[in-house]
């Protein structure tokens, strides 16, 4: 089975965000592989362990995206493809078009349900439409049996069970698996694995970031008391001030 995994370089979740124009100030920011994409890498590795094949890790971004591809290679992916851009483009469809060029001929295309920087939750369905492939997004269970697959995804108050034919685009959610950590031999081996770099054929951008701002601060927190003795005061505030009771 030939599997492509799309993986994005994103700021670590614990990063303190400082705004610089329409982007964040990257000074001192630690970057990581998007955690949801790591579920996709792990799913690919487990499928390869079962039925063999090749795993290609693909990342779109500036040269630093190659570090993220190396993470996937260290986990066990076979080779990398870097689609080079100046900076990280924002527009989902523009990026999807560039990725789609590279994603022809795979049995399975795996990626995280969202990137923790842009929170767009959109890449898998967008890719599937461009490629004309079936898609299941945000899966928490995945089974592939020959040319057919089944998956589960969480919906409000329940779980959907879905069936789909291959080739397909699947996006991964937390709960699907526990991504392995790269081992030292894995990290050493990753340095020798092939990595191709070529310019990304970005589509036209339809969305522009006009501004980026810090969220309005919540009013400073207030401790109203200690222990069960504070309960009557809380009830009063919920009734008269917050008006939720």
């Amino acid at each position, binding site marked *: 089975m030939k599997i492509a995994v799309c993986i994005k370089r994103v700021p670590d*979740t614990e990063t303190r965000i400082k705004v610089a124009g329409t982007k964040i100030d990257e000074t001192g920011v630690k970057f990581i592989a998007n955690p949801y994409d790591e579920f996709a890498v792990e799913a690919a590795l487990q499928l390869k362990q079962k039925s063999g094949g090749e795993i290609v890790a693909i990342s779109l971004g500036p040269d630093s995206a190659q570090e993220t591809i190396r993470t996937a290679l260290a986990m066990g992916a076979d080779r990398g493809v870097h689609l080079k851009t100046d900076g990280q483009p924002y527009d989902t469809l523009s990026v999807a078009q560039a990725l789609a060029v590279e994603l022809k001929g795979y049995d399975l295309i795996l990626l995280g349900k969202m990137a923790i920087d842009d929170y*767009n939750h959109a890449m898998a*369905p967008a890719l599937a439409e461009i490629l004309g492939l079936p*898609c299941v997004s945000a899966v928490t269970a995945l089974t592939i049996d020959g040319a057919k697959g089944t998956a589960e995804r969480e919906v409000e108050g329940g779980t959907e*069970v879905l069936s789909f034919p291959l080739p397909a685009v699947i996006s991964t959610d937390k709960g699907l698996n526990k991504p392995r950590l790269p081992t030292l031999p894995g990290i050493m081996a990753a340095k020798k694995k092939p990595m191709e770099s070529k310019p990304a054929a970005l589509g036209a951008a339809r969305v*522009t970031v*006009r501004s980026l701002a810090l*969220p309005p601060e*919540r009013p400073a927190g207030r401790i109203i008391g200690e222990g069960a003795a504070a309960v009557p005061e*809380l009830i009063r505030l919920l009734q008269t001030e917050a008006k939720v009771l």
Partner: protein
Amino acid sequence: MIFAFAESRGTSLRKAAFEAISAARELGDDVHALVVGPSGIAASAQELGAYGAKKVFVCEHAGFAQYNPEATAALLAERVKVGGYRAVVFVSTAQGRDLAPRVAAKLGAAFAPDVTSVATSGDEIVVTHPVYSGKAIAALVLNGAPAVIAARPSTFQPARTDGASPSVETIAPVGDPSASRVVVTELKIGGGGKLDVSEAAIVVSGGRGLKGPEHFNLVEDLAASFGNAAVGASRAVVDAGWRPHSDQVGQTGKVVSPDLYVAVGISGAIQHLAGMRTAKTIVAINRDKDAPIFKVADYGIVGDAFEIVPALAAAVREARRSG
């Protein structure tokens, strides 16, 4: 004209259907909605009208008994294209997150999900969208028509209008919905149809301060005391296996914006705050007075959850009885 997707499950509308119409109404008065479902869903058209849809398109087909992403996206894209709408509005639910990007890709349209405000300025639509775990807010310009927008759940509140009955048009599906490649074979409703944290007006969440999964009954009882509250959990207790991932509030769980959020024994790591900082009112109960949760809590109580939570549940019951 603005188009709204009215989300349904079986023959019932979801709350998201009304939220999509509310968001659409902020972009224009002439809102048209589409609802798809099995035989019987047509009865919901009047209700969509009561919340502000001037025209309702209804497509009934056995292939829409369960969520049918391919057939729904095909019908939506065609309807939006034919009608020449300025924008199409979804809500970022499990369905909306899956459908909206499909429709945007079919239409080659500008797309923004999890939108917290919408505005038109001349020919432009400008929306705000939280990024970096809610640590920054992006203002996005959506160029060209139509624009595809998905509203953050529980952000655009449903509002009844006194408008006339909507005009209702029955439409045929595009292609055969029963021939979709992706098929939902089963919908498993979790825990007796319990309320989902992302949809509830009140959420009571528990964290490691509860010391063990056997003590979550305290949180469940507090939730029950409010009548219709959902039970959430922090990442720590989900990772420890005390609660299912579907209950997790936070960066790698669900983002909630309820009227009231009660955090019990949750310290308030950035990853948790990302999921609940937009709640209208936050109550925190924690033993550690320096816990970061108290920095965002409107009302904090320092102390032992095992003592405070039962007292609070009793007081809430009493307040609701006499209120």
